[in-house]
């Protein structure tokens, strides 16, 4: 081996080591935000992933909209996919909506004061959820597959992520329900990666983990 070839080989080795170091760093720091409207199952999905990873659930779930009103964070959640490991930091975000009305909460037995305070916290949570977009490495946009996906929230979130080149996967949740319609979501967003799951039962979560590995890692 001549001198120049030897130098080139050494430089290439150093570059490979540096590349590996940065890759490992990114792997350990990968932060995934869970975006979507209220009550689509963001916290249920985050809890399911935590449970699959042998961790405690990240937060409480409730039928009352806007149960998650501040960002919930869980670091270093690791899922085994065959021989590979998928490690991530989870940011479970407050649900995004274009209107928050305390009167909606009164139907669930809250007092007027409690409902108004919940509405105030929910609005603050929406701002936090939208502003955190610029901080995440990747996103899961969770949709309720029983609902019409053509909403201002869904279109705005997906458009903003596409414009910012944030890798994302659409998660069509609640496929355990009879009126689930995943095809409607696929027709609406044919160019985006979509995985259909049930966070409640755990159905097809392995497909989601593989999709994250393929599209985000």
């Amino acid at each position, binding site marked *: 081996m001549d001198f120049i070839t030897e130098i080139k080989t050494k430089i290439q080795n150093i570059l490979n080591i540096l590349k590996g170091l940065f890759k490992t760093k990114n792997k350990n720091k990968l932060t995934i935000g869970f975006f979507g409207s209220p009550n689509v199952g963001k916290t249920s999905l985050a809890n399911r992933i935590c449970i699959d990873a042998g961790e405690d659930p990240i937060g409480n779930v409730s039928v009352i909209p806007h149960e998650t009103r501040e960002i919930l964070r869980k670091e270093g959640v690791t899922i085994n996919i065959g021989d590979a490991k998928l490690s991530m930091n989870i940011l479970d975000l407050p649900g995004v909506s*274009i209107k928050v009305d305390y009167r909606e909460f009164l139907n669930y037995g809250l007092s007027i004061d409690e409902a108004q305070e919940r509405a105030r916290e929910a*609005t603050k949570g929406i*701002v*936090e959820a*939208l502003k955190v977009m610029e901080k995440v490495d990747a996103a899961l946009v969770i949709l309720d597959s029983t609902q019409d996906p053509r909403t*201002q929230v869904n279109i705005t979130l997906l458009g903003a992520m596409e414009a910012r080149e944030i890798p994302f996967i659409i998660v069509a949740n609640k496929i355990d329900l009879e009126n689930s319609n995943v095809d409607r979501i696929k027709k609406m967003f044919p160019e985006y990666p979509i995985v259909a799951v049930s966070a409640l039962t755990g159905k097809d979560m392995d497909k989601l983990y593989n999709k994250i590995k393929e599209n985000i890692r």
Partner: protein
Amino acid sequence: MYKCIVCGRTYPNDYDITKPCKCGSKILVKINDKKGEPDISFDGRVENITVKTKGIFEININSIITEKTIVIKDESNIYYVKVPWKPNTGIE
């Protein structure tokens, strides 16, 4: 006028926005015809959160994403400006 956020093609106001752009993207945003910029202020409003009455809020999610400032208009037409908004995520 509508503008594709991926390739930048523009379409007239009467364009059926349920149809995708020629590039395949399905996300078209309404833009200001004169300036050619996204019409993020919606009808000229500067606020991105409107307090209709105590406990009822209207949120302009598009402008919250795109603008650094948060402008809140309360029920007495008083404006509050928060600059800049930094979410408490623990992420550096």
